[in-house]
């Protein structure tokens, strides 16, 4: 475990979205997007959130930045309760916590030049002279590998990888302490993914950043994260140090997920834990353990009781009745 202090402390975070229906469009239920999620991120550490689509990992990332309002729970950033902030205080706080989007095509305003895109966060949070602003822009564009002569161009004149560099520059120009990276390499080609991952790692060291790294790609998450949480149907099923989880997965879902990754060695024997069926709808989550209807080890208790999170090894938590 790292010796750094806790930067972000999430306790029992919950995000529900109302479902309306009936003649009068009343709220008839809720999508349980994030359900009782707790984890901590230390300074200069990367916490990886993995899970399949619809498991609530992106919603978690946006909720803890309060881009989506949480239904319940605590978000402590550097000891400060983010939920207690007013909208304007929160807005000012955003210079310390930023978001990198998955899609560098749609997340950059096509009408703004790279320079304008990079200056906007500075204008928002600092009152700098044009000269100071130029210095900052030059510094960040060099750090992410955008040539100064490209600053007057517009996003559509760049390739996907270059555009993602611009997004990263825009997120980091205010020198935040914490960044949520929401599937930052998923939209990119394999040969470009590695470039962006390296960039994120280099910048983390230089700027002493903490990341929440959200991805469905288990290999990518393993590479970049110090700790990971495995999400399923809005809940974290298992969390711990990355290598501990990958070498010794405890939850049946984690095991199945890991064994589903296609192996890169054509000769390797494929022994796969097969998961039948689909993920249930978060609008109508099953009673008991959310995974019970697909779990090979399902027991009577799993159908009725939501398992508690237990610490089986130091720092390695799992929510499963197998370990009761």
């Amino acid at each position, binding site marked *: 475990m790292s010796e750094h202090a806790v930067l972000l402390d999430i306790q029992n975070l919950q995000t529900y979205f109302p479902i309306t*229906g*009936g*003649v*009068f469009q009343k709220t008839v239920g809720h999508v349980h997007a994030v359900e009782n999620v707790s984890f901590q991120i230390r300074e200069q550490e990367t916490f990886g959130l993995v899970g399949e689509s619809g498991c609530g990992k992106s919603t978690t990332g946006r909720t803890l930045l309060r881009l989506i309002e949480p239904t319940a729970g605590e978000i402590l950033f550097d000891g400060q309760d983010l939920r207690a902030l007013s909208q304007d205080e929160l807005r000012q706080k955003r210079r310390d916590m930023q978001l990198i989007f998955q899609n560098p095509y749609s997340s950059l305003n096509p009408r703004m030049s790279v320079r304008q895109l990079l200056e906007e966060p500075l204008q928002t949070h600092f009152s700098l002279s044009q000269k100071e602003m130029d210095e900052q822009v030059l510094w960040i564009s060099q750090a992410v590998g955008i040539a100064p002569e490209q600053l007057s161009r517009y996003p559509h004149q760049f390739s996907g990888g270059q555009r993602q560099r611009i997004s990263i520059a825009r997120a980091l120009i205010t020198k935040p302490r914490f960044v949520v990276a929401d599937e930052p390499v998923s939209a990119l080609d394999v040969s470009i993914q590695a470039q962006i991952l390296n960039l994120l790692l280099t910048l983390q060291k230089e700027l002493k950043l903490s990341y929440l790294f959200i991805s469905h790609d288990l290999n990518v998450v393993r590479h970049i994260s110090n700790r990971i949480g495995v999400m399923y149907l809005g809940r974290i099923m298992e969390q711990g140090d990355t290598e501990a989880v990958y070498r010794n997965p405890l939850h049946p879902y984690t095991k199945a997920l890991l064994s589903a990754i296609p192996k890169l060695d054509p000769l390797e024997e494929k022994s796969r834990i097969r998961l039948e069926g689909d993920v249930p709808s978060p609008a109508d989550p099953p009673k008991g353990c959310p995974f019970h209807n697909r779990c090979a080890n399902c027991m009577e208790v799993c159908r009725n009781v939501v398992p508690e999170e237990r610490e089986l090894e130091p720092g390695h938590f799992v929510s499963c009745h197998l370990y009761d």
Partner: protein
Amino acid sequence: MKNYILRRILQVVPVLIGISILIFAVMKMIPGDVISGILGVEATPELRAQLAAKYGLDRPYLVQYLDWIGGVLHGDFGESIRTSAPILPEILSRFKVTAELTILAAFISWIIAIPLGVLAAVKRNTLADRFVRVFALLGVSVPNFALSILLILVLSLAFSYFPPLGYVGFLEDPLRNLQIMILPAAILGVTISGSVMRMTRSSVLEVLRQDFIKTVRAKGASERVAIFRHALRNALIPIITLIGMQIGSLLGGAVIVEQIFSLPGLGQMTLTGINQRDYPVVQGCVLFIAFIYVLVNLLTDLLYAYIDPRISYD
């Protein structure tokens, strides 16, 4: 399904109430009072008061409104100031003409527009497409009254054809009725076919680009199946929405075309009412037309839900 229909109907209610309030308010705001209109300015105060009492004009607006709308709900639209005849039976008998005109016009526009729109989409960027697009642009741009006048002019000067005068109901003499109706209906149909054509072309093109058309082709489908069974079926949804909205243009267009061709329809009745300052008649006619329009839009919405399996009914 039942929930969906109920919800849509409930959404329409405030609009209908709003419409009636708006019409009522407009009628009350008309400068110059009705009584002077009927009796002349020199009428004695006693006579004026008598007439005001007769039409209930001496009561507060709210009472007048409720009284009027209550009557409307019971099928009583009041009486004409000019003829003292009850208004609703007159509206209904004239609506037959307007309905025939608009329905005929609608069919004519679909028969022209949908095939041509599909053709333009399928043969995109060819001569045929260009022809259809020019035709559609003209359809959108040529006002129905200008087209009517020019057509009458051409027909009378070049072919010595004059549109038959004197309206005959469809039930009395179907052939003669169609002879009378076909020209105004065609003019009305052509002037709205432009936008249907454009919508058909663009939505068929849009659907033809979608993935599932590639699947259909990969299954070995002929172009005919891909276009009609799949592309057009999917493209119908936006087309139907447009058609619902076009009923408005048709009803509005009918006001003008009825006037030109002397058809005894609702539009003509409304205009006569306005020119004669017969406000109860105007009130009734406009309310009726607006209700019909809202109703048709409601029906297209329900049809939409029926055609598209993706719309859930609850």
